[in-house]
């Protein structure tokens, strides 16, 4: 038990001061109360219709992500440290992308090997020589954070493409205020509900220069069969902007228009939740029916801003991740405030040798994978799984990285009949705009509901928790 950092108790019998009231509440609440609150939460989520599609699972095409009613707490001092690190990291990511699609100083300086960038499918040659408006490539970044002790935050992964989950951050908060108003009012919880306002302000700030006064902002979704469609419609609703699909847009002479009942309306900023590959059938995949023909032409002509910018995915590659401390040092002349998890790059022969010898202890990930698909968790894998992965590694070492099995921190989590610690991570959302970075205090806490499991991805049976950043310090 003691090998993990428990955020409530830290291995002691008394809770950390931060968690005093939560511990007290858990002590006095009868199990029936927690059970009924949990059931109410599920009914409410079902009514609202927050669902999530799991790819490759026909039985449960639309599933509810389990919600845990015990909040996860962070002190203001902890948050302040985390926030500074996140801003630093996202600033470096944007500078990195500007450089890669521009002068490529970092490659010439030999900091990052160039084959890692150019052989990566996410590097878009179409963007070479073009700058993104205001040099912002990743307007919305989701940085996955884990804790393994009381002091340090580690970055597990950067998400620079179209990170999802922010709707859960907002819905979970509403749910807590509704279900447990007493507990909520005992804590001075910093608000997250200004996220939609911040997002709107960020998107406004990057509108093309020609744009008069009020830019027309839209959200482009792949449609209702996308796993995050709920979030797309949720955000459109909160932002008060139109939710459109590719077929609702048309491009004429490098200008994007939306078809409306009153005719064509010019579009200035597109928050797109469609992957690069599907954005424009004239430039990327020709068989894409989700995108808009001519969209890239309009973007490169500077007539519309795409958030996030095409080609931003090259920065969140898991192999590039391993160079992040160097990338931050190169552009900002600072040491990284958030630590990287120790990572072996299987492309390096010595590392590959080590990884092959220690497969049963390591977590091996595909460089280009996401959502917890295609990874090996050594300690939990069968012999056959390990052998399969050994073959995969040998045939394509460049495609994999390996990390130690992290002792993710745990938080108390409610189950029928009791409360038990479960492993958690945190995905805060960082907004970059022409006038600086914005982060609401909080994020999406994902919890691995299976006992002992370290995989928190919602596609792999993870749940969510509300994250409370308090106005008081943890220490």
């Amino acid at each position, binding site marked *: 038990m003691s090998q993990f950092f428990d955020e409530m108790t830290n291995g002691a019998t008394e809770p950390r001061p931060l968690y005093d009231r939560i511990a007290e509440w858990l002590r006095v609440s009868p199990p029936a109360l927690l059970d009924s609150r949990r059931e109410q939460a599920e009914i409410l989520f079902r009514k609202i219709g927050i669902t999530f599609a799991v790819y490759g699972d026909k039985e449960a095409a639309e599933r509810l992500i389990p919600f845990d009613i015990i909040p996860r707490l962070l002190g203001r001092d902890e948050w302040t440290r985390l926030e500074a690190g996140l801003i630093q990291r996202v600033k470096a990511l944007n500078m990195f992308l500007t450089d890669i699609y521009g002068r490529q100083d970092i490659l010439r300086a030999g900091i990052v090997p160039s084959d890692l*960038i150019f052989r990566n499918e996410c590097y878009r040659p179409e*963007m070479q020589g073009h700058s993104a408006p205001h040099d912002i490539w990743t307007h919305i970044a989701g940085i996955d954070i884990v804790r393994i002790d009381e002091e340090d935050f580690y970055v597990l992964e950067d998400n620079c493409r179209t990170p999802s989950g922010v709707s859960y951050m907002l819905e979970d908060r509403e749910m807590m205020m509704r279900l447990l108003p007493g507990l909520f009012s005992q804590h001075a919880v910093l608000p997250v509900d200004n996220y939609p306002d911040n997002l709107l302000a960020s998107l406004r700030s990057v509108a093309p220069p020609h744009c008069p006064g009020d830019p027309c902002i839209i959200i482009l979704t792949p449609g209702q069969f996308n796993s995050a469609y709920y979030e797309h419609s949720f955000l459109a609703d909160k932002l008060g902007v139109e939710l459109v699909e590719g077929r609702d847009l048309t*491009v004429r002479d490098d200008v994007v228009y939306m078809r409306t009942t009153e005719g064509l309306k010019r579009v200035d900023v597109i928050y797109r939740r469609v992957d690069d590959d599907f954005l424009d059938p*004239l430039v990327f995949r020709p068989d894409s029916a989700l995108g808009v023909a001519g969209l890239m032409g309009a973007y490169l002509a500077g007539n519309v801003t795409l958030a996030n910018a095409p080609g931003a995915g090259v920065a969140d590659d898991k192999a590039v991740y391993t160079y992040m401390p160097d990338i931050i040092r190169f552009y900002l002349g600072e040491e990284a405030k958030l630590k990287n998890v120790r990572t072996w790059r299987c492309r390096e022969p010595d590392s590959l040798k080590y990884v092959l010898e220690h497969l049963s202890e390591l977590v091996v990930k595909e460089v280009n994978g996401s959502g917890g698909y295609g990874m090996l968790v050594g300690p939990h894998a069968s012999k056959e799984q390990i052998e399969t992965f050994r073959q995969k590694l040998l045939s394509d070492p460049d495609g994999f990285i390996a990390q130690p099995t992290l002792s993710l921190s745990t938080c108390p989590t409610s189950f029928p009949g009791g409360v038990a610690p479960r492993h958690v991570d945190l995905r805060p959302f960082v907004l970059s705009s022409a006038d600086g970075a914005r982060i609401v205090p909080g994020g999406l806490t994902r919890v691995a509901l299976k006992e002992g499991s370290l995989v928190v991805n919602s596609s792999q049976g993870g749940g969510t928790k509300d994250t409370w950043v308090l106005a008081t310090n943890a220490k």
Partner: protein
Amino acid sequence: MRARVSLQIEASYSEPTRSANQVLRLTPRPFDGLHVLDWFVGVEPVATLRRSEDGFGNIVHSCSHAGPLEKIVITAEGLVETQDVAGVARGLNEKQPLDLFLRPHEDAEEIAAFAAKELGGEKDRLSRLHLLMAALHEKLNHAPSDAAPRPVADVFADGEGSAREIAQVLVAAMRAQDIPARFVSGLLLDGAEGAAFHAWAEAYIDDIGWIGFDAALGFCPRDTHLRLAHGVGFFGAAPRRAAISGYAEEKVEKRLTISAARQASWQIQQ
């Protein structure tokens, strides 16, 4: 050779479409083996043609049409003077690093095995490239067509393909040998029948640069090859990409005419 080239592409739709967007790579870019004396790209119905340069340095025209639209006619014509430079493409505006052209090709295991077997222990890169071209020319029957290329594995298994399909297989084979390789689209100036567009591959050799290899015909590009564009694969170098909104079927007809092919002055002087 000096040639007057005239290419007409006529796209007609089974029912009027709401709108159409196109990207055209129909303008040759001059290099050591090519003088472009005069060139014109036009579209009917008349629309603004915006000329730009893509990420590879190709000259691109794009245009959009509002419907209802039954037919679009694209014309590309001009006067060019080509020189036989043994396929070496020197003097182009190279914008991308070699690593980009080493991206492994999808589903190319069979092709990689074939390349390894054919090459045996040959060490010299230039000889390996010639061997690969000859082996694929031998193995794949050239059936001219302007259709979108099938996946390389299918073409390789089938044993027959269009010039663009064979070029993609050759690119995959070269990359499997860790040689930077790219796809080139162009026209043939010798009046060959069957398809308007031709395609071949280019591979990089230190000290020489990019050299063309045409496995469909079995030799390196000569003065009959008019180079239009290059890319990582076909779609980055496609002469024309178009999308329409609506459900109409598109039927495309192409006419390529080459005329007044007289000896170029510099050849006479030699």
